[in-house]
């Protein structure tokens, strides 16, 4: 089950500069565990010890904020696109 994860500039030191990497998992939390196998250290920047998202990290599943979907428990399907972005100001 392939899921594309888009990585922000600030975290590409974990992906050898790659803008996007592939991984698998039934849930977002599982995807992060899978990504961390090949990109060690990435997961710790995204979630805390309890598995919940870090405060200044926003993750979108097909453009929808996962905090409103189920957080780390959000179910994933083949072909989904995950976008990771740091929280920035608008206005």
């Amino acid at each position, binding site marked *: 089950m392939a899921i594309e994860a888009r990585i922000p500039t600030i975290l590409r030191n974990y992906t050898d500069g790659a803008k996007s990497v592939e991984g698998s998992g039934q849930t977002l939390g599982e995807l992060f565990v899978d990504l961390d196998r090949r990109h060690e250290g990435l997961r710790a920047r995204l979630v805390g010890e309890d598995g919940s998202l870090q405060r200044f990290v926003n993750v979108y599943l097909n453009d929808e904020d996962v*905090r*409103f979907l189920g957080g780390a428990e959000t179910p994933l399907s083949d072909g989904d696109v995950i976008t990771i972005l740091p929280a920035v100001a608008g206005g």
Partner: protein
Amino acid sequence: MVRYDSLLASLGHTPMIGLPNLSPSADVRLWAKLEDRNPTGSIKDRPAIAMVARAEAAGELTPGCTVLEPTSGNTGISLAMVCKLKGYKLICVMPENTSIERRQLLEMYGAQIRTSPAAGGSNEAVAVAKRLAAENPDWVMLYQYGNPANAQSHYDTTGPEILADLPTVTHFVGGLGTTGTLMGVGRFLRDNVPGVKIIAAEPRYGELVYGLRNIDEGFIPELYDASVLDSRFSVGPAEAVRRTRQLVDDEGIFAGISTGAILHAAMAQADKAVKAGERADIAFVVCDAGWKYLSTGAYAGTLDEASAKLEGQLWA
């Protein structure tokens, strides 16, 4: 009654316009609230006027004071007009990657602009403004990201106007920047319309704007309360430009680019309602008109060319 004693008194009471061509059916309808019909042409007139009034009432703003604000444009333009009329000096901290029209309008109203670096977007503007405020304790920073009068202005005016014009409202879709519109309108509608859905559309900029040195430098406005929202969507420049043009083509409404992002999220809610066989009256905000963004190239050429030109710019 459309006569007012002054420009400031004409704030709000903006039209709610049906979109017969973009609405999927008679049961699922889209409604645009034209916030460009405000004194300086944007929704930000509401929080700007409210924040100044609150600071005056609290005795923080007195004649001759200098007002300071981090802004990517519209709030600064609104404040510049209010400060001009009331005799305050205004200093705006604005990221360098904002459209030339916004700068020209600020200068026309007599505001002083301090430029913050493009990398980091509005985060940097906020950081620079906070530093300036600490160095100049006599300046008054209204701080739209954390000033309760921002959200309250929408609770007191935008929200009630929407409900009065559209008592059957089922969804409200707004843009997420300071979060003031969504927090204020969202709370008002939740207090008055059982089951209403509050949807946020957040602009997704080019990589430069997310160019923080460290993820811990991220920024969440103090006003933000996630419990007011039902869902939040990230909308990139390609979809925003496409919907902005669709709004002109199908309904004749010439809106700014952030409105295209909001319309994109609103149309997704409309599709969802159609598929579920549910009735929906979806109100969304037209934040401003397109005039200030003509120089960005968003309205000319192919969609690909237009969205490529927005890369690296703060288009919302």
